[in-house]
């Protein structure tokens, strides 16, 4: 059947099951938007900035496990997407970004609103395409969704010149994707799994260290079975939050720079570390040559390049975490005897508890705890980046995957609010709450307009301390309290929310925190809760950059 490029795009999106697109129109995507006008299977969410669209697609993908889609015009539209694309790339999130491009014969001509978008996004996408022939378009879209969502997922960009959007071509939807050079490994090597099972059976101090791969592969249930079978304590990275129930007795919480003291000490003392879908990032390992010196490491990951990149691995197993953990579970006949290890870990929990000084002031940790209690742990939490993010990771207890959505690898301020929007679109039945700072929220605050216009009712709790808190904390601890450019003013968030048609609540007293949260949750609108928290509260524990991860600063006497 003959179709124009735009029709092929829309038909292909339909076949890929796309229901939502976050984006913004412009000159070089006019033919596409003309077809979107009639595409009733689609809900197009017009953001207020393309960066918001990319983050919303990302948040949607994280909350649902489906591919998120964003769209922008050529030049500035596309370059505005790039932070969001880089963010998705660092955290292995499947999104497809569709951008308009100037007409093929103008490419390279410095045409109006031209940018070399495939060039710019090459190092921040899993793959990208510039469509030069209408006959390639359907196949490229099919490949883009396939590449984005398989193997180690990631963003894929399709750049479509506007003349291709208008040209006619035959619509042929490929039955399947044939890429001779891309064949992800899903099943682990049986010999390696056997070796791992043997090592685990002999372990005295086994520990599971899990990352985002557990959530991506849907391995959380089998992981839990394995942990219970071998009775190994479980710690997770920021990306691994929700991969194992925080309320489980084997849970150690997050490890790393702002991890719990007991998780950090436990991994340093372990004799067998089972790493699942985690990549030994520098925020996790601290000083690399001092990391877990006595441990043998089993590393399960779908990306061979993640294995032995940062630390030496004894038993690498490449493949999908869910498959491999299932195999491993069957292979382990004898659970290791680890009573002593449990005693040691319990001792660490008593010695290094996660704590803060709860006094009459509004402590940010207290606010996060109140959010947890008010939602009974059933919300989807997104975060911005900095102190708010660490407190949200430490003080809310996540029992389910895809309930904690945060910019892990790139550390993008301004992510949480648009990501919450995307998450709410994907999970409308859930309360979605962005735990924000007063700095970060101002980076994509324009999306208030999108939320109100589309009735995407998210809640934003601003831990407002008048500072760029994490930078201030580092300046306090490592730069002699010389506070350089970390004081930040904010608008009156109540008036601001009101002017957009949302609701704002300001909280200045501790006893008002919980009622304000309850009220926000009960109202059928987007709500900003501006909580005036203790200005110079720090995130503890903390491992200074470059230190071993058991060299924690506690901060409390």
């Amino acid at each position, binding site marked *: 059947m003959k179709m124009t490029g735009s029709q092929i795009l829309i038909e292909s999106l339909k076949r890929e099951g796309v229901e939502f697109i976050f984006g913004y129109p412009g000159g070089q995507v006019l033919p596409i938007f003309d077809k979107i006008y009639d595409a009733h299977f689609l809900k197009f969410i017009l953001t207020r900035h393309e960066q918001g669209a990319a983050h919303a697609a990302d948040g949607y993908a994280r909350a649902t496990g489906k591919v998120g889609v964003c769209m922008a015009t050529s030049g500035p539209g596309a370059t505005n997407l790039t932070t969001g694309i880089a963010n998705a790339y660092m955290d292995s999130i499947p999104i497809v970004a569709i951008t308009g491009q100037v007409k093929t014969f103008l490419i390279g001509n410095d045409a109006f609103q031209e940018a070399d978008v495939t060039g710019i996004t*090459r190092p921040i996408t899993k793959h990208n395409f*510039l469509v030069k022939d209408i006959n390639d378009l359907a196949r490229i879209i099919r490949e883009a969704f396939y590449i984005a969502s398989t193997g180690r997922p990631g963003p894929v960009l399709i750049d479509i010149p506007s003349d291709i959007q208008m040209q006619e071509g035959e619509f042929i939807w490929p039955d399947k994707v044939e890429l*001779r050079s891309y064949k992800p490994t899903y099943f682990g090597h049986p010999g390696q799994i056997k070796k791992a099972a043997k090592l685990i059976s002999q372990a005295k101090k086994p520990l599971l260290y899990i990352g985002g791969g557990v959530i991506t592969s849907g391995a959380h249930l089998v992981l839990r079975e394995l942990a219970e079978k071998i009775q190994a304590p479980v710690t997770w990275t920021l990306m691994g939050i929700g991969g194992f129930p925080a309320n489980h007795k084997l849970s150690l919480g997050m490890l790393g720079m702002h991890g719990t003291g007991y998780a950090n000490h436990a991994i340093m003392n372990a004799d067998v570390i089972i790493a699942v879908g985690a990549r030994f990032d520098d925020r996790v390992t601290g000083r690399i040559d001092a990391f877990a010196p006595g441990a043998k490491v089993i590393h399960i990951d779908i990306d061979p390049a993640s294995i032995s990149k940062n630390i030496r691995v004894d038993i690498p197993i490449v493949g999908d975490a869910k498959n491999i953990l299932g195999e491993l579970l069957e292979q382990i006949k004898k659970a290791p005897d680890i009573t002593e290890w449990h005693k040691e870990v319990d001792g660490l929990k008593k010695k290094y508890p996660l704590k803060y000084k709860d006094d009459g002031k509004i402590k940010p940790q207290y606010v996060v705890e109140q959010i947890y209690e008010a939602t009974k742990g059933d919300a989807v939490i997104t975060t911005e980046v900095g102190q708010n993010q660490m407190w949200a990771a430490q003080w809310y207890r996540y029992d389910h995957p895809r309930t904690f959505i945060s910019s892990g690898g790139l550390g993008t301020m301004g992510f949480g609010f648009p990501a919450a929007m995307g998450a709410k679109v994907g999970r409308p039945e859930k309360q979605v709450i962005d735990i924000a700072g007063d700095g970060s929220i101002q980076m994509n605050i324009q999306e208030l307009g999108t939320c109100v216009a589309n009735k995407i009712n998210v809640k934003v709790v601003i831990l407002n301390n008048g500072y760029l808190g994490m930078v201030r904390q580092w300046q306090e601890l490592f730069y002699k309290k010389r506070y350089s450019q970390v004081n930040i003013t904010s608008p009156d968030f109540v008036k601001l929310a009101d002017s957009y048609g949302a609701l704002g609540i300001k909280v200045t007293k501790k006893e008002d925190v919980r009622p304000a949260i309850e009220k926000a949750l009960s109202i059928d609108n987007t709500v900003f809760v501006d909580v005036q928290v203790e200005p110079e509260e720090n995130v503890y524990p903390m491992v200074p950059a470059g230190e071993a991860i058991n060299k924690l600063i506690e901060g409390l006497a």
Partner: protein
Amino acid sequence: MRHTISVLVENKFGVLARIAGLFSARGYNIASLAVSETMDPAISYMTIVVEVKDEKILEQIKKQLNKLIDVVTITDFTKKEHIDRELVLVKVDYSSKDKARLENILSKHVAKLIQHKSDVAIIEAVGEQAQIKQLLDDLNKFGIKELVRTGRIAITK
């Protein structure tokens, strides 16, 4: 240490940029690069010589290259018996009275005189890197005016 790897890639626009970008983004050094078509017009062949501190980095390079969607296969020649060659063209100062001296040098090397005019001679040599280096050391005494050389290409035995 230098290692030679070859990469078969899809012959599409932008692939060279992907490969080169991967090296620059991750801070790896390319010592030389040779790209050509293969018998299959859909596939190109790249021979890359990399300079790395240790095997671990070489492993990372291979793994990262493998992740690129357009990379079909990678061959690492480090532990494989292989033949490698480079081609060099050299322009040297030349006058007829030097002829015997130049021919004497060339006879010791894998080189031949392909053109000479009143004051310059152009010499071509194909050989392994060490052979090329020896030739250039000898020719240097003569006065090298200009020099071009290809990257290394390699084939397994």
